[in-house]
């Protein structure tokens, strides 16, 4: 084993040699520089593996004396890990900076090495004064690094930094010497055990030290300087400061925070939380990407402080290594690679004038993939390490303190909103500018992230996680890898992927989940056929669609809470990406993302609470023992995702603005995710149907009101996709309401309705996508008369609207019949009334849909419109055949459903031959189908006798006398079709929810702006803030300590 | 009314002719007309244009246009008469003063062939769709000849002058002599 001290020595030494050697032997100098870094990395990793495999921590005594006389350097697993991080960050950073350094001779490389060396010193040293020295070394070298830039901004922010850190070091120094005075030693380990520490003087001195470190850690509000530094620095240097330097200081904090009594830790936790929330709040207002990253870094520091102090306050000094590794390790790795990666991306994509435009990043496929990966990693989505960290953290905190969970999740919500906003901007760009060489570094970063997470699973840290849950991820990547192939081969491969996933997932699932997974995969594959029509313009779309289908499907195959949460997050992320690839979808995707993430976080809080309360991992047991609060949180999360009334405002835009070909997957499949979630919760939860305050009745009302308002809003839309979106919202409302019933009939109805919704909503969206692709518009009043041009599409839409409206004989009626029966059986009569009203209002938009698009006057520009391509028609008619089959023989479908539901509720319906008997009435789908055929054929045959004299006329051959029809546009009654309805009851359809959420957004924005004003840019203000911060903190600490 | 005429005479070169106590006509020149009408509308409260009509003074080779205005507060009407050349029948549009004047002007354009340049839609069809002859209200247009030429007159139609027709005694209507007595 190499002496770890050598890393430090080599780095320092090479720093000096480099400066001396560079003018004479460039190659040798550079080799030495990188050699030193690689050496350090290699040594650290070697030690790390040593420790992981059971090595014992050692203490290095460079002077040969033990404390208090000599300096002691600690060297254990944590130190080795952090120093690996530091060297890795340093190595990557120096590679990224190589070009800059080579072109302009400066002290940069030396200072860089000094910073690294100082950081290593900070990590290893266990001597207070030694720490002070290393703090100053790193501060000065980073300040120096700042000044190496061409612009004076570096000097300015360096000045501010030195001012504030100077102040901090004064505090540190005073604290140090007083501690020395009290305890007689400078070695941390000895101070900690010193009895003198407990007194007031010891407390104050320790406080000064820790306050100085907090200032260095950029805790709000004493962090304005850091924001300026990170904004003005060269991005790679900013990455170095934000990751390497900060992580080193964080480790210092980790070493010394036990100096203070444990009951004061809550103050640190709060300070960390405030930093976390305020940084992300202020970050929302940033339009400079690098400054946003600065805020993100600061927020991360806050989170670290929270995590460290909180775990310590819960576990004392015996924090389980597993938890510490996952939470801190996960976050630190993410911080290093993702945040560092984003800084490197900024560096790489800056134009010659130093301006950074994030749209340039997304303009290349590789750049897009990389920034997507980095941002998703930062946002804590699976399979990135931060995801596991987040899960573990929230699960651990939920066990003891729910408010902290909510604060953390609020901050995280701000963060993910902000990150996704930038991602949306990045992906918006089309390739206009010259393509850069791929940023290899970021690629490496991404790769390591994925590698780590998979490694984490192999390490067996999560025994409740089955690797098969990551199938969607591999499917997504596999589909992405073949994106260069011709379209049809690509689609065939995609369908194959879905099939393989089915083989892998379906046998492992059971019950409702199994059926669900199979159905989602099947319908996804069916819908994929439509893509055969034409080559894809967007290479992202197909992999994302495959990913969406798989992530939605995998929800049925999960067994543990962690697996559920993982697939839920994957589904959210992938579907948001699918939406954001639409033409003008940036804003709507952000809205979707915001509400989905808010729902997901509620779900996370609920799951974490349930898991920690039950101590179980298995989904069924978790739900079975879950406390009411967690059931409420979980179902609230699902309701958010389902877009029920109140949080529905993302629905129309997300559906309408996503690509026409993507919408069916979102509308028909993704919308089923919350449904299966609700079903799973209520299936397993023991008391979900009793609840503290009739929670399910509330959900039931939310459901029917969603159904009603969805239908009402749909009636007033002009955009066909928005109409269908609101229609989906309404249908989901019915399903939620009947799930909430918690009765046998209700659940049969729910499953039946959900399955139908997949069928006819998929059918509708496929058909309408075909129409839109032919007519090149999605505004209904611009279409019209298409029945003559697209008769097969018309039939498809006709079938689906009959199915949706519940008119017999198509299977929609069965759903409605069971729904009303269930409502009446349960005594939910008023809800039944509202549901009936909703289904009446549904007629309005359904008629409007078919009339405005297919009937009425054809427009001149659509005179040569052709029928949809065969690739659309085939899936369309397969679905129609399925609908007709179900209509004729509903028993085939219903019997399995009823068997599934029987496992949860006692049966209240039974079959008599083809007659389904409920406690209220009966339904014979078979007979109804035949009678309908009969009564339909009778007049038809009568009329067929008269078909000979009939003259087929043209559109304008309508009744008119004084005024002849001018143009098809003026003759087609389409725009604002239900104006009278709006006049009658439009007052209840005012966009109140939209106004409310806009208000929330504006208030958040204003708050963020207010928080952001703290960073005034004036170094003196920053210094004052530091003093104030320290004073206030001291005040609070005294309160708790005494 | 009289004071109005007096005031007008002070400002414009007009002749007046009073028909009733609340109805006067003044003759003006085509050149003065817009100014005169604007004055009447804006300063003399004659805010309403009742009608605009034309008479074919074929003997003078002129059209006489009459602009009838009303003062709703005093119930007084004033008609402004303007004569324009019949051969080159062009008149200033007053559609900017009263929007509905465009309809009258459209009608005059169609029926008399008087052009009002700048009047909106003045050349659009009004009543006659696709008329190809000289404008039918011009007195040199022989409407009877045109009707006979165009409308397939039913043979056997006879026309009697009302005066002679009313004198004839119909045995079915014994009260006719009473009527006859009235028609002299």
């Amino acid at each position: 084993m190499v002496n770890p001290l050598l890393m430090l020595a080599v780095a320092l030494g090479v720093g000096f040699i480099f400066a001396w050697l560079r003018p004479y032997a460039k190659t040798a100098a550079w080799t030495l520089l990188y050699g030193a870094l690689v050496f350090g990395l290699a040594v650290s990793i070697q030690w790390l593996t040593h420790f992981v495999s059971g090595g014992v921590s050692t203490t290095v005594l460079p002077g040969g004396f033990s404390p208090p006389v000599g300096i002691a350097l600690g060297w254990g697993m944590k130190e080795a890990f952090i120093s690996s991080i530091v060297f890795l960050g340093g190595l990557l950073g120096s590679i990224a900076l190589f070009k800059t350094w080579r072109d302009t001779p400066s002290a940069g490389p030396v200072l860089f090495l000094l910073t690294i060396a100082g950081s290593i010193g900070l990590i290893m040293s266990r001597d207070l004064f030694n720490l002070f020295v290393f703090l100053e070394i790193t501060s000065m070298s980073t300040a120096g690094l700042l000044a190496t830039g061409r612009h004076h901004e570096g000097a300015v922010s360096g000045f501010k930094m030195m001012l504030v850190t100077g102040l901090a070091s004064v505090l540190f120094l005073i604290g140090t010497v007083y501690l020395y005075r009290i305890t007689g030693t400078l070695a941390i380990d000895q101070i900690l055990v010193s009895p003198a520490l407990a007194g007031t003087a010891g407390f104050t001195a320790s406080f000064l030290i820790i306050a100085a470190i907090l200032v260095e850690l950029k805790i709000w509000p004493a962090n304005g300087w850091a924001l300026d530094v990170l904004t003005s620095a060269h991005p790679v240097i900013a990455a170095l400061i934000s990751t390497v330097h900060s992580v080193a200081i964080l480790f210092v904090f980790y070493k010394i925070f036990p100096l203070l009594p444990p009951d004061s830790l809550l103050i640190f936790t709060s300070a960390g939380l405030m930093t976390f929330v305020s940084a992300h709040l202020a970050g929302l207002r940033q339009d400079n990407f690098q400054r946003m990253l600065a805020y993100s870094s600061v927020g991360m520091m806050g989170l670290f402080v929270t995590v460290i102090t909180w775990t310590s306050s819960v576990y004392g000094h015996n924090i389980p290594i597993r938890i510490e590794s996952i939470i801190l390790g996960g976050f630190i790795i993410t911080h290093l690679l993702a945040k560092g990666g984003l800084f490197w991306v900024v560096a790489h994509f800056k134009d010659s004038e130093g301006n950074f435009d994030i749209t340039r990043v997304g303009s290349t496929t590789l750049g897009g993939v990389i920034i997507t990966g980095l941002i998703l990693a930062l946002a804590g989505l699976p399979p990135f390490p931060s995801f596991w960290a987040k899960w573990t953290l929230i699960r651990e905190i939920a066990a003891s303190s729910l408010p902290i969970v909510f604060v953390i999740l609020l901050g995280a919500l701000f963060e993910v909103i902000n990150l996704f906003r930038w991602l949306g901007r990045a992906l918006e760009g089309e390739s206009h500018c010259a393509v850069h060489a791929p940023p290899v570094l970021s690629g490496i970063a991404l790769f390591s992230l994925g590698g780590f997470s998979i490694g984490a699973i192999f390490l067996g840290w999560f025994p409740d996680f089955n690797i098969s849950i990551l199938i969607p991820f591999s499917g997504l990547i596999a589909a992405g890898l073949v994106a260069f192939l011709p379209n049809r081969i690509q689609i065939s491969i995609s369908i194959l992927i879905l099939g393989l996933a089915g083989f892998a997932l379906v046998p492992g699932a059971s019950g409702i989940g199994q059926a669900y997974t199979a159905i989602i995969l099947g319908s996804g594959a069916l819908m994929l056929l439509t893509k055969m029509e034409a080559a894809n313009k967007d290479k992202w779309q197909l992999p994302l669609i495959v990913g969406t289908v798989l992530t939605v499907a995998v929800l049925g195959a999960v067994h543990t809470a962690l697996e559920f949460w993982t697939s839920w997050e994957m589904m959210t992320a992938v579907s948001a990406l699918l939406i954001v690839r639409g033409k003008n979808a940036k804003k709507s995707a952000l809205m979707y993302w915001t509400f989905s993430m808010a729902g997901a976080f509620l779900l996370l809080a609920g799951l974490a609470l349930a898991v920690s309360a039950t101590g179980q991992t298995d989904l069924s047991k978790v739900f079975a023992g879950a406390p009411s609060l967690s059931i409420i949180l979980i179902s609230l999360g699902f309701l958010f995702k389902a877009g029920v009334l109140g949080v529905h405002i993302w629905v129309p835009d997300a559906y309408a603005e996503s690509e026409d070909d993507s919408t069916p997957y979102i509308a028909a499949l993704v919308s089923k995710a919350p449904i299966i979630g609700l079903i799973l919760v209520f299936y397993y939860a023991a008391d979900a149907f009793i609840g503290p305050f009739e929670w399910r009745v509330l959900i039931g009302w939310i459901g029917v009101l969603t159904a009603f308002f969805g239908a009402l809003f749909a009636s007033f839309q002009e955009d066909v996709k928005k109409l269908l979106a609101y229609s989906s919202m309404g249908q989901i409302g019915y399903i939620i309401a009947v799930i909430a019933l918690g009765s046998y009939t209700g659940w049969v109805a729910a499953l039946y309705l959900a399955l139908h919704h997949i069928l006819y909503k998929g059918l509708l969206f496929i058909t309408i996508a075909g129409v839109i692709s032919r007519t090149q518009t999605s505004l209904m009043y611009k279409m019209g008369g298409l029945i003559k041009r697209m008769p097969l599409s018309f039939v498809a839409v006709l079938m689906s609207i009959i199915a949706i409206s519940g008119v017999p004989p198509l299977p929609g009626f069965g759903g409605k019949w069971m729904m009303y029966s269930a409502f009446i059986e349960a005594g939910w009569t008023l809800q039944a009334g509202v549901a009936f009203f909703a289904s009446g209002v549904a007629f309005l938009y359904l008629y409007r849909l078919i009339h405005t698009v297919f009937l009425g006057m054809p427009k001149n520009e659509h005179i040569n419109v052709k029928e949809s391509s065969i690739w659309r028609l085939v899936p369309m008619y397969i679905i129609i055949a399925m609908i007709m089959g179900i209509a004729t023989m509903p028993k085939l479908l219903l019997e399995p459903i009823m068997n599934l539901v029987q496992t949860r509720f006692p049966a209240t319906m039974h079959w008599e031959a083809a007659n389904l008997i409920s406690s209220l009435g009966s339904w014979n789908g078979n007979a109804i189908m035949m009678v309908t055929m009969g009564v339909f054929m009778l007049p038809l045959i009568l009329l067929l006798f008269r078909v000979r004299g009939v003259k087929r006329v043209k559109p304008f051959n309508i009744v008119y006398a004084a005024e002849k029809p001018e143009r098809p546009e003026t003759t087609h009654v389409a725009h604002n079709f239900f104006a009278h309805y709006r006049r009658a009851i439009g007052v209840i359809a005012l966009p109140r929810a939209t106004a409310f959420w806009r208000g929330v957004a504006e208030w958040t924005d204003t708050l963020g702006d207010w928080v952001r004003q703290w960073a005034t840019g004036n170094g003196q203000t920053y210094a004052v803030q530091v003093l104030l911060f320290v004073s206030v903190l001291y005040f609070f600490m005294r309160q708790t300590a005494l | 009314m009289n004071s109005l005429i007096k005031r007008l005479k002070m400002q414009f070169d007009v002749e007046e002719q009073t028909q009733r106590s609340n109805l006067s006509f003044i003759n003006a020149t085509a050149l003065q007309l817009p100014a005169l009408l604007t004055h009447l509308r804006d300063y003399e409260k004659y805010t309403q244009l009742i009608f605009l009509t034309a008479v074919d003074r074929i003997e003078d080779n002129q059209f006489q246009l009459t602009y009838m205005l009303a003062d709703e507060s005093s119930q007084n009407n004033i008609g402004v008469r303007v004569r324009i050349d019949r051969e080159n029948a062009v008149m200033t549009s007053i559609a900017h003063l009263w929007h509905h004047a465009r309809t009258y002007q459209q009608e005059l354009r169609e029926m008399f062939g008087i052009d009002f340049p700048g009047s909106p839609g003045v050349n659009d069809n009004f009543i006659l769709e696709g008329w190809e002859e000289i404008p039918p209200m011009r007195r040199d247009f022989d409407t009877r000849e045109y009707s006979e030429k165009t409308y397939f007159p039913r043979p056997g139609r006879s026309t009697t002058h009302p005066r002679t027709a009313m004198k004839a005694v119909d045995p079915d209507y014994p009260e006719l002599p009473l009527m006859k007595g009235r028609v002299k």
Partner: protein
Amino acid sequence: MYIATKAFYLFVSIIVALVWGLTVNGIVRKIVARVHGRIGPPVWQPFIDIIKSNAKRSMIAHGVMFYFGPVFRFAGGLGTYVFIPAVFGSVVFENLSFSGDLLLVMYFIFFGQLGMALGAGEGGHPASAIAVGRGLAQMTAFELPFALSIISLATQYNTLSITDIVAAQQAGVMSWTVFTNPLATFAALFALLGMNMHSPFDIVIAPQEIPLGPPTEYQGSLLGMLHTNRGIFVSAKLILFMNLYFGGALNLPILMVKTFAIYMLSVVVGVAFPRFRADQSIRFFLGVPTVLGILALLIQ
């Protein structure tokens, strides 16, 4: 054999309902005329009109859906009727009521409406589309009190089967729903006014402004079919109301008396009131009738 007998009975039942529906129409027209002090058309005028419409030699069609519109409409009327038991306890007039219940009947009403609306839509006449818009909007409104009333009945009798509901009312006049559940009955009767589209709720077919609305373009046999349907559909609606609220009928004469009386309700209201605008009638139905329906649900 069973099927043949059933089909024959069904045929008889349909013919009776059709003839009765048209006759009621004729009688009402006669009565209204007499009230006006006119002589009025003969009672059989609706039949002549139907023959006349079918006697048109030429017909035009705007497309397949236009042609299917009346077919849907008539099928909707027929279907509604065949799922309702017309005479309680009668083999002939039991129809096909065993294969469905009240919900089926309610939704089958939509079948015809939808088809007609589609046919009218393909006709392409602006007035048709406007009228369909009005009609659908008004329908959503008057279906609400009706639905509330039906739900109230279902909880009252704990069944959705029409035959069972009729059976429960056989204990004498006071066991009729109109007496046992008057709120629900009145809510439904308000809805019936809207359903019959008599004045004041005839904005849909407003003959002067939007020439008859949906059937503007229909003529000849297509119109004849619509008129035929009017006969059967009126019968179906009246019989449904009779069954649900007025104790059903044990034989045809009682059926005739009861249905005629129910029909007269909307006729009397119709001749007495002028027309509502579409939004007014929507708000009307969402007002008092809906409150009645909600009360009917809450009071039980």
